[in-house]
């Protein structure tokens, strides 16, 4: 299941960067300007939108969009 479009649309709500300009290597904090609150709210939004339950310890290790998308794909495939 390809979650990319919906995932990037959610990210776009938090940043000035348009979904089509996002690349997998972009880092949430350094490149997209996420604060801790932003990132944790974003994880909650992913859980609600995709109806998954993220492992918080794993989620906190995520640094880039690519890593987050990979984690999400894993969760939605389970």
């Amino acid at each position: 299941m390809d979650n990319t479009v919906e995932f990037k649309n959610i990210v776009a709500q938090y940043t000035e960067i348009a979904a089509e300009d996002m690349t997998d290597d972009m880092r949430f904090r350094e490149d997209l300007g996420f604060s801790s609150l932003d990132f944790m709210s974003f994880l909650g939004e992913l859980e609600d939108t995709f109806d998954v339950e993220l492992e918080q310890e794993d989620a906190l290790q995520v640094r880039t969009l690519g890593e987050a998308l990979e984690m999400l794909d894993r969760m939605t495939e389970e």
Partner: protein
Amino acid sequence: MKYMRKEYPLTAAQNMHYQWIREYKTQQVSGVSSVAALRSPLDFGLLKKCIQLEIERYGCLRLRFTKPDENGDIRQYIVSKDPRDIPMKDLSGMTMKEADDLMQSWAYETLDGNDRPMFDIYMMKLPEGYNGFFIHMDHRLIDSCGLVVMVNDLMQLYTHYRFGSEYPKDLADFEKVLESDLKKAGNEKRFAKDKKFWDDQLDALGEPLYSDIQGPSVLEAARKKHGDPQLRAADIERKQLFVAVKDYVLEPAPTKGLIDFCMNHQLSMTNLLLLGIRTYLSKVNDGQEDITIENFISRRSTHDEWTSGGSRTIMFPCRTVIAPETSFMEAAYEIQNVQNRIYMHSNYDPALIREKMKRRYHTPEDTVYESCYLTYQPMPVKMDNPFLKDIPMHNKWFANGAATKKMYLTVSHTENGGMNFSYHYQTAALTEKDMELLYYYMMRILFTGISNPDMSIGEIMETV
């Protein structure tokens, strides 16, 4: 067909303020007031037009509340128009201190009643050539972040019409964001997850333990009063609500030290400040390891949340149990870990956490586990408007004069790169000396810690 207005329940953040109004029996506890003025002549006709336009643009300004029902509950609705005149107040013949004192007295006024506008706004002629506006609002409409967004938007409108600058970007629709917030709050799966998080914390750590700025004598007094030597909560002041404010400014150079430490260790300033406060509380409470501080979270992350206005700020207990042998750095990360989890569960209504604790631990009425409340405001105070950036500003917040909290610390950044520590404290129990000690030791703790991140919390408490 008769027009049916759309009514909504209060959000958890709004309800927090409403419950304080009910508990303390005065709307004064929900007041927020500010003046924004520029040292420049203003076209007051244009300013009036821009304020009226702002009322149209910023939906939260048009919020009204219904009369309480038989249970005391109220609902909210948004009126489509608020075609008010904007009065002018000319204080230019006073000194700035006299003008500030007068505006301070306006901040004590209450906005009583239902189905009425919940803010007052005046155009201001101030001393020393400053001109601008004063606004006095109910916190259920807006919080301080929302007010800063409003002031910036209003000044952008003014510079657009006055100087031809770009028209400000559209603000998010307040009603849509409100509906989205209420929908999220009603999401059963989300609610269950959030509830589990807070219940698990109590299961793991047991009942919290009160810690006071003035040391263990306050808890001891509560134990005597309630005839319970095991009591772990202490009384709050319900009658003498008068609050005094003491500000301390940390200079730009040491501020940079704190900011650099946070950057280098991927730590947020909030968490560093929480560590400073909790270590002080631990120090003055015989090394108590279990400390809870109420931390306010603005709950603004998306564009819509940032620009819709509204009252989004809500407080959650940050509880940490930190042993004295824990290093400063480990303690900071422990707090960060706790706070990150709280952020993920910040849609939960914190009133439910308190209700749960009350039921579980049978605490007496009007007792709490916290004496300190923290707000950190990362937003710069300088208006982000190139047409105004070189014009001196008189921007001041006025305390509403009635505190529901024993001590409420607001930390913000100053225009010159420093930080302002604004301590609002109930004078019924606390004095300026208490605030001086708290600030002094907080700084000693923080700067000892960032210089020696491997030093243990116990050593730091002994050293400072």
